[in-house]
């Protein structure tokens, strides 16, 4: 029975003009989206390579200089783009791409792409993720809204029943007939994308496993949607009503709830404004050790401690330049302050995340949205990871410079200059993004919620259609 229904439905769909047109439109849109994203990806990558190389050259060739002047001069860490961002741009548009690494300060990532665009950008971009998350579910509604109501309206359901067909078997056949075309189409699209990406020169970061996980995520998303549509179609008697109801669910799940969630999250766990944030840090810094201020209370304490530790009675007797040493201690203290304040931001965000997760109980869009970005390495967590890595590199750089200052010069020698080739010894900034297994680990809750949705909707579908 399942096979018969499947065959009949597939044939019917194939012959239906609106389905064909809809498919063609979606394919056309996807092609444009992929084309635009590929260009964007290539551009950004070229800029990234060029900017990183330039910046390193500027650093290497700064000539003879005091190490601490070089620390103030600073350097930049640029955020790379990853191949799967071609499929899901995630929050990339709203996070900065470059972080200035200098002495005493941890800086936020600069240059948010959205702030360099018109207000149109807030409506969204025509990218593959837009089509995958919004348009294909809509297409599914279009295909499936009347698959059970039409049997009721035409009276064929009675005929089917009289032949001894069981409700859930008919529905399962129909389910397969809707899912299969989408599954094949999507797999083909992902395969093409995979081949395209693996042929790019910087193939190293692309992984088929990630692409496959992404594909499975979307297939589960569509399965959930098909279940919801069929449940509605089985519960009402008119096609028109089924369509309007399915669409309402789509709007609620994909548009209304995410926005409502974002408002709730902001209301309950607000971020400080940029100015407040920097003011708070400045307050904390004032009270502690400042590498540039040898007269503060904290500086005096450090002085005494150091003298005691090395058993000498004046700073010039120390085996290193105390100025560099104090500079480093100040740096470490400031890094702690930043760590504390950034941790506060992270806590706020993880609390916000909790709200998104709670609302995911009524919107399967949310867990899929988060998972998809995470796998594509365009989510907020990846941005945090990058920003932390840049901060670690900054701390290491400061240590590298201050240590050299302390070791190679004597106390009070502020005119000291490091050799022109000294700068080349600083290791390059190399950012390794989290691996797929790590990503899956951090997103377990999203995966569980998504699977609960899948199983739950299947069960509900089974019980609503057991006896049609």
């Amino acid at each position, binding site marked *: 029975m399942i096979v018969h229904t499947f065959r009949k439905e597939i044939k019917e769909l194939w012959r239906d003009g609106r389905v064909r047109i809809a498919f063609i439109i979606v394919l056309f*849109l996807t092609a444009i989206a992929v084309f635009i994203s590929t260009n964007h990806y290539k551009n950004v990558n070229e800029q990234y390579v*060029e900017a990183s190389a330039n910046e390193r050259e500027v650093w290497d060739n700064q000539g003879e200089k005091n190490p601490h002047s070089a620390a103030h001069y600073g350097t930049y860490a640029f955020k790379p783009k990853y191949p799967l961002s071609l499929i899901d741009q995630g929050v990339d548009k*709203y996070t900065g791409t470059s972080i200035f690494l200098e002495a005493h300060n941890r800086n936020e990532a600069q240059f948010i792409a959205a*702030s*360099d665009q018109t*207000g149109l950008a807030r409506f969204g971009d025509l990218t593959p993720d837009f089509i995958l998350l919004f348009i294909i579910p809509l297409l599914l509604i279009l295909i499936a809204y*009347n698959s059970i109501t039409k049997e009721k309206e035409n009276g064929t359901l009675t005929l089917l029943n009289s032949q001894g067909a069981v409700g859930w078997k008919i529905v399962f056949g129909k389910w397969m007939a809707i899912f299969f075309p989408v599954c094949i189409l999507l797999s083909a699209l992902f395969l093409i994308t995979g081949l395209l990406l693996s042929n790019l020169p910087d193939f190293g970061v692309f992984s088929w496993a990630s692409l496959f996980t992404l594909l499975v995520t979307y297939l589960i998303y569509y399965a959930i949607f098909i279940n919801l549509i069929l449940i509605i179609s089985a519960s009402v008697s008119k096609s028109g009503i089924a*369509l309007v109801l399915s669409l309402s669910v789509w709007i609620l799940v994909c548009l209304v709830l995410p926005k409502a969630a*974002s408002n709730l999250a902001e209301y309950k766990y607000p971020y400080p404004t940029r*100015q407040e944030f920097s003011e708070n840090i400045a307050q904390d810094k004032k009270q502690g050790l400042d590498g540039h201020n040898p007269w503060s209370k904290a500086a005096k304490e450090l002085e005494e401690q150091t003298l005691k530790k090395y058993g000498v009675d004046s700073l010039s007797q120390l085996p290193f330049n105390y100025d560099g040493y104090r500079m480093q201690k100040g740096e470490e203290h400031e890094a702690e302050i930043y760590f504390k304040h950034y941790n506060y931001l992270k806590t706020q965000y993880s609390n916000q995340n909790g709200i998104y997760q709670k609302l995911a109980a009524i919107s399967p869009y949310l867990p899929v949205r988060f998972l998809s970005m995470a796998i594509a390495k365009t989510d907020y967590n990846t941005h945090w990871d990058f920003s932390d890595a840049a901060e670690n590199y900054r701390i290491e750089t400061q240590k590298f410079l201050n240590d050299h200052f302390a070791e190679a010069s004597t106390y009070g020698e502020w005119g000291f200059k490091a050799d022109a080739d000294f700068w080349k010894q600083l290791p390059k900034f190399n950012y390794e993004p989290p691996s797929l297994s790590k990503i899956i680990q951090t997103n377990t809750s999203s995966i569980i919620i998504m699977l609960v949705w899948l199983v739950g909707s299947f069960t509900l579908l089974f019980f609503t259609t057991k006896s049609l």
Partner: protein
Amino acid sequence: MLRYNFKYEWLLLIRNRWIQLLSILLLLLFGFAVYNGIQKVEARQNSIEAAVTELKTQETATLSVLDSLENGHKVSVSRWRLPSRPVVIGNSLARVVNMPAKSTAFIATGQSDLFTHYVKPTVTGDDLSMSYTEMTSPVQLLFGSFDLAFVIIYLLPLLIIAFSFNVLAAERESGTLKLLASQPIRIRTWVLQKLGLRFFWLILCISVTLLLVFVIFSFDFTANWTSLLVLIGYIIVYALFWFVLAFATNIWIRSSAKNAIALIGFWVLFVLLSPSILNQLSNSLYPMPSRTLMLNQMRTLKAEATKKQDKILDSYLRDHPEYAINDSTQTRNFYHKYMATQNLVKEELRPVVEKFETQLENQHQWAHTFSWLSPALTVQNALNDLAGTSEKDYQEFRSQSLEFAQQWRDFFLPFMFNNQKFAKSDYKNLPAFAYTYKEDATHLRILGLLGISFMIMLLVFLLKPMKQKISIV
């Protein structure tokens, strides 16, 4: 006939519980949206106020130190933080250059979650390092905000579609169309009357619920009644457009399901697709130069400038002989070199920065030219303008604040180069900033949308082949 129709429609809508359902739904949606909007505006105003209060306390403290200094008392401030140094005042007492919210700001979030509402330009800071983006979770920016504009632009059309997609087809599907055809009225006129009545009831529901929500959230009606009228006007025009579209599909398409599909298709096209396609096109046609490469340029320029600091200062002083003349001490320190270099770098970077501005302006122009293609865009822009949260408003804030930053620096430059001390009496001369909203919004686009609605209507009535073809079977 209109009288019968009116009465019947009223009874139908009431007994179907349509009116009741709609009112409750609208009340909930408007209520939640306005609540969210007001929360955001309050947070914005509070942060500005906090910054101003903070500045005031700092000012009092600084002024008292200055007072003691001038009276020859001893102060416990390290030498380079003495407020008699102009550079200290220029950096530590930086004004809170802010953009207060309009009273209508809660209507549309617009770009207000992306950009900051106050900056504190310092005398040694440079324009490029001033950050205008707000510290918001990017996830929030991605999802957007549930504001009144969202309800109006995204959800209202869907309510209208649900309200009107099967007006004619339902009659046909339930077999009552034949009865109707026997009445002395043309089907088209009948559909028009019926939809017109629904339009009337919907607008009434919207106005009443909106007013109720505004009353609940204590909106200041006396001061802002024009904005309220404009808002309702926008809603009427936008709703009319969707009703006209529903009228056309009702006449042209026979089955109710297909009607719904067609209307949803229009919705997807106007609300989701055309804005994103326009955005992509504007980005591709007027691509932004790379910010990362701009950084490179800036760094190289700064590095070069630092190497020739002394020369730069010399030529700067040649250009500004007043500084060389007025200063009796003729001492030059780090900050003199710094300020002169800063000026030079700014001048040299100007073409690079301008390229960003012109490209953004081009994108904006392009988007503006084609925004009439999507009624959703037209209304979004109009609402953002009304709320004072459009990208233009933030651009305006940027340029006004940068102007002020220059004014602030210019105020301190003579002090610094003349090696003149900052006195308590100079305090009252400090430049002050007040943001003024630029009011150049026109209703032309909205009127254009009204025109489009009439054109669609006209088409439905004029297209000959359709004239008698509304089949009743």
